[in-house]
């Protein structure tokens, strides 16, 4: 096991990607994720990899599409406004069943918004960002260690299920420094049999494509893809539970707000309120099952988010009306203090 090093979240993502066998980074500058590009620009030329500062976010995601078409590990990173631009390309990746990693270090929106942290791309990213029926594996780290670990996992899952994956964090997570233990370098697997790598005149040509003019065939492809998604839901849903055994009140929160909520929970426990937390690690697939299970024991749920209330809809769907679900939020780049979350918990505990 390698030793612990102190790293910024964004740098941990970059180094973990390289150690996961990624040799192609294609991006476009945007705050607050630029450290990823800067790190890649330094490292990739030294290890025989590719770093391209593309002419646009759109070009960057299409370069990712090109590398992915050859069966190799490629990634891009951006922040909210840039992710909007990448949506077309993400839809094409999904339509052509191509694996790739997209990192979204979110900032406040809509529009140009701000450059402070936010979770306001939750809807966009968990519903399949782009046109058409599709899903994206969405992983939400809550520490610099997880920034590294989930980057590696995102690549593995993307290739296992042949679909794009996203690491969804926020500006705080990207800028934060923590000790992190990085995994040893992984050997890159040989190119996939479906990839466009040249026929060598030895096999029929491979076609990477998402166009099906025959509606029956397109329906069939969609159904097959959703059968694959069902497998992902069944096998890859990840979450962490914190003090839920006896919880009467349950916070659902991910990323930076899960850390804040943890502090609020400690405070509430001291005040005698039995509160726990479910921290989704995969936002898609969403951990509905553990939430539904806790809905039988809990009096109320609290969704803690830094947006106007997006994940709360998934929490309500999971709870199935068995308990009330309230929202504790800040938006536009603001972050709640542990005290604000604690107050929200107290309010929740007072309700009849």
């Amino acid at each position, binding site marked *: 096991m390698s030793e612990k090093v102190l790293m910024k979240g964004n740098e941990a993502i970059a180094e973990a990607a390289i150690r996961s066998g990624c040799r*192609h980074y*294609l991006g476009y500058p945007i705050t607050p994720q630029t450290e990823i590009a800067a790190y890649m620009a330094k490292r990739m030329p030294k290890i025989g990899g*590719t770093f*391209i500062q*593309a*002419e*646009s976010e*759109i*070009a*960057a995601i*299409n*370069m*990712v*599409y*090109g*590398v*992915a*078409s*050859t069966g*190799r590990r*490629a990634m891009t990173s951006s922040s909210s406004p840039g992710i909007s631009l990448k949506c*077309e*390309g993400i839809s*094409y990746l999904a339509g*052509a069943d191509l694996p790739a990693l997209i990192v979204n270090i979110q900032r406040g929106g809509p529009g140009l918004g701000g450059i402070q942290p936010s979770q306001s791309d939750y809807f966009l990213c968990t519903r399949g960002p782009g046109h058409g029926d599709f899903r994206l594996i969405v992983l939400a780290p809550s520490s610099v260690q997880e920034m590294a670990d989930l980057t590696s996992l995102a690549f593995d899952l993307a290739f296992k299920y042949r679909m794009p994956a996203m690491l969804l964090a926020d500006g705080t997570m990207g800028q934060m420094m923590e000790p992190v233990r990085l995994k040893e370098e992984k050997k890159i697997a040989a190119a996939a049999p479906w990839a*466009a*790598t*040249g*026929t*060598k*005149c*030895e096999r029929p*040509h*491979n*076609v*990477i*494509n*998402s*166009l099906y003019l025959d509606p029956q065939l397109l329906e069939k492809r969609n159904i097959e893809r959703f059968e694959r998604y069902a497998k992902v839901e069944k096998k890859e849903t990840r979450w962490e539970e914190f003090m839920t055994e006896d919880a009467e009140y349950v916070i659902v929160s991910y990323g930076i707000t899960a850390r804040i909520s943890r502090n609020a929970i400690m405070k509430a426990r001291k005040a005698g309120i039995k509160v726990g937390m479910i921290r989704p690690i995969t936002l898609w697939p969403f951990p509905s099952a553990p939430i539904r299970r806790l809905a039988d024991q809990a009096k109320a749920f609290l969704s803690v988010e830094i947006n106007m209330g997006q994940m709360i809809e998934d929490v309500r769907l999971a709870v199935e009306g068995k308990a009330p679900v309230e929202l504790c939020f800040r938006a536009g780049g603001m972050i709640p203090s542990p005290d604000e979350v604690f107050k929200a918990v107290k309010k929740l505990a007072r309700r009849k």
Partner: protein
Amino acid sequence: MAIVFQKPKSLADVPLHYCPGCTHGIVHRLVAQAIDELGIEGRTIGIAPVGCAVMAYDYFNCDMIEASHGRAPAVATGVKRSMPENIVFTYQGDGDLASIGMCETIGAAARGENITIIFINNAIYGMTGGQMAPTSLPGQITQTSPYGRDVETQGYPVKVCELLSTLDAPYYIERVAVNNVKNVNAAGKSIKRAFQNQVDKKGFSLIEVISACPTNWGMTPQKALKWIETDMIPYYPLGVYRDKGAEGGKKNG
């Protein structure tokens, strides 16, 4: 009996969907012929556009990738950087390359990506039924310029070869036409050269092919070929716009 003429090996033996009189078929053949002659089919990866040539992925026997509208040069960049020993080409129309994909076209050209771009300029959007293209001529009647392209409100056509030859990086840029036998033969040589350049790791090559779209021009195939001669070529002069291989990197128009 000696075979004097046959289908190129890298061109698939399938019916093409193109309209009667369309010159895509000719250009497909020229591309396949170049691939055959250079013996590169097994390591060639083609990128199809969105537009009339969208189904080109079914027409070439090499590995093929379908790009989103206009993004083929970015996709080609990713493929080439991942597989530098492979030969990567894009096949794009005027709406794809010169309108929605202009940014990607200029980006790839400015980087001098070692790829080959075959650019079909037929001055119209064919697949969607004949709308004004960035390359439609002044006064040209289309579905979206029903009174003729008015340069006051709809601007002037984009001259891609002239535009790209202002950049430092491109290695080879030429405009050819496929309206008569002489021009088709010359176009074949140019396309082969554009692939040869990539084999030799010389850098970015683009061949603009002035092509006919009789269906959407509302002309017979014969009249369409004539219109290339009388109207298109005077506006889009044929010739080599950049040739870094020639002495002094001669330019002409």
